[in-house]
């Protein structure tokens, strides 16, 4: 028998651009007022900014900027080598550039989870070794470059990529340790996390550069970059640990019981059942922490490391370029923004992919 149910379509509320504008921007007096206010703010800020940054601006290296009202991007075009690479010898900049391109390519390839396999793991390993050789040199006829001379974006990427990749698993271990039933491990993890979280990163960096060497045996020294790296890892791991703990506590007890009743042991249960779910829940807060850790690497300026921020500042201390700090800071802000945007964009993609509907 034919059923006589009429198919009712949802009402058409808006038609075309004008319909959309009326619906979303001018639907009520309040909305109209807000639209006008925001539009005028944009008009009076964005237009002059574009005028300054693009239309009236100077781009050529060593232009005479003193006479213009616009931005003087010449500070970037003249000094980009120093800003991006610090004191790395300028005649062999192809080496860090190649290394960075390799790193970025590997990161982009790794975005796609379908490509996560052993080969990608080997590529990372090989890539890291090649990058290290390229940067450090000293073999294969490459001129040796002291680690002290690595600066700018090389240092920023080094501190953040290694810092974040090491801090994340360490944070997970600390979180598991804090949940542990073994009192010694639990106490240690709680103590560590609370201690580190109670101290500013700056003081940790100071300790790593000033206090820590006092404990080393006579004549032994550990590279300043490595010490800063360790401080950043220790600091970030404590925060990651607390976020992951939140995810672990949010897990349904039934998941542990189901895993137990299959006979899975603790490691298997955590690795296969609990962590994949708990880490998925905490993607947004973990990414916030990773992003802020990435930006916090700029704090190494206070212990005299030449990261991106410090190299920019050193350019600005040149009398020739004094007074153009806005342009310089906008430039590095843009670099930081691109990296952070990449991270948060990836986290949203990951969340969507991992959503299984329960």
């Amino acid at each position, binding site marked *: 028998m034919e059923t006589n149910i009429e198919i009712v379509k949802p009402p058409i509320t808006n038609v075309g651009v004008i319909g959309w504008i009326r619906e979303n921007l001018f639907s009520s007096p309040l909305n109209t007022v807000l639209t006008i206010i925001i539009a005028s703010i944009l008009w009076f800020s964005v237009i002059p900014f574009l005028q300054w940054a693009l239309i009236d601006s100077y781009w050529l290296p060593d232009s005479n900027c003193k006479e213009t009202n616009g931005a003087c991007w010449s500070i970037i075009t003249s000094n980009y080598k120093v800003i991006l690479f610090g004191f790395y010898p300028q005649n062999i900049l192809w080496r860090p550039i190649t290394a960075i391109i390799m790193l970025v390519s590997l990161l982009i390839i790794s975005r796609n989870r379908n490509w996560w396999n052993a080969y990608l793991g080997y590529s990372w390993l090989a890539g890291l070794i090649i990058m290290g050789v390229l940067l450090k040199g000293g073999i294969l006829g490459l001129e040796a470059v002291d680690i002290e001379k690595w600066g700018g974006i090389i240092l920023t990427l080094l501190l953040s990529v290694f810092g974040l990749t090491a801090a994340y698993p360490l944070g997970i271990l600390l979180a598991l340790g804090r949940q542990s039933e073994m009192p010694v491990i639990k106490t240690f993890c709680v103590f560590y996390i609370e201690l580190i979280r109670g101290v500013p990163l700056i003081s940790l960096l100071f300790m790593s550069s000033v206090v820590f060497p006092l404990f080393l045996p006579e004549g032994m020294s550990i590279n300043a970059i490595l010490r800063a790296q360790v401080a950043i890892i220790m600091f970030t791991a404590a925060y990651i640990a607390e976020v992951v703990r939140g995810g672990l506590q949010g897990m*349904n007890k*039934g*998941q542990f*019981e*189901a*895993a*137990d*009743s*299959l*006979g*899975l*042991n603790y490691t*298997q249960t955590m690795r*296969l*059942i609990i962590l*994949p*779910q708990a880490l*998925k829940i905490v993607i947004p807060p973990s990414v916030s922490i990773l992003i802020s850790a990435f930006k916090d690497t700029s704090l190494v300026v206070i212990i005299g490391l030449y990261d991106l921020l410090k190299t920019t500042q050193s350019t600005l201390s040149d009398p020739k370029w004094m007074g153009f700090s806005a342009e310089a800071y906008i430039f590095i802000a843009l670099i930081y923004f691109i990296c952070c945007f990449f991270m948060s964009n990836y986290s949203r993609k990951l969340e969507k992919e*991992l959503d*299984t*509907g*329960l």
Partner: protein
Amino acid sequence: MSEDKTKKVDISSKKTVIEIINMHKWYGDFHVLNNINLDVKKSERIVVCGPSGSGKSTLIRCVNRLEEHQKGKIIVDGIELTKDLKNIEKVRSEVGMVFQHFNLFPHLTIVENLTIGPIWVRKTPKKEAEEIAMHYLEKVQIAEQAAKFPGQLSGGQQQRVAIARSLCMKPNIMLFDEATSALDPEMVKEVLDVMIDLATGGMTMIVVTHEMGFAKSVAHRVLFMDEGAIVEENEPNEFFDNPQNDRTKLFLSQILH
């Protein structure tokens, strides 16, 4: 449920697979299980019923040590449950458990839910584990859903997957903890049918349930628990028609209107 399908074979001569002797358990000062003694023979089907909070779930959870007992002995398949983790994992891999809320792993597909135990606990090769998984999915009539995630299935389907997941470990004993209580009424039957099918195949089962029809037709023995103790036990016809204890009578009058 036809009579011949659930015909009860005589199990009196079979060997004992679960032995619980003078077992006690407390939550703090609260005496949840009070002097439990129970022998379960191979292929025996036991239904445990009783008011909520009477300790029936706790009892079966002690059998695979999801709960720890504090006094007495529990011996499963010849292995005594103690603090020894190796023994506990061994017992757990031999004893299947089905939960009220299914507890499927939501981040894994159905077939991955089924293969994870065999692959990691039994060290079965992946391919073989998948064949076993498909076999049991067919048995619970849900093979076509193998590639889906648990969140995409109905409650009844999820519970059937959960049963199949336990069966993939080829357990000697199955424990059912109110397996149908969280289901919509129209889905209860599909899960009970799977359980009856298992019973017919000779599985040793301890079933905590309020499905008295299931108890009558499938169980060799019905236990009634109240306040942490086994108050009455009998074969089903006698248990339902001629309850001895006053508390049993009261309970039965409340659930069999």
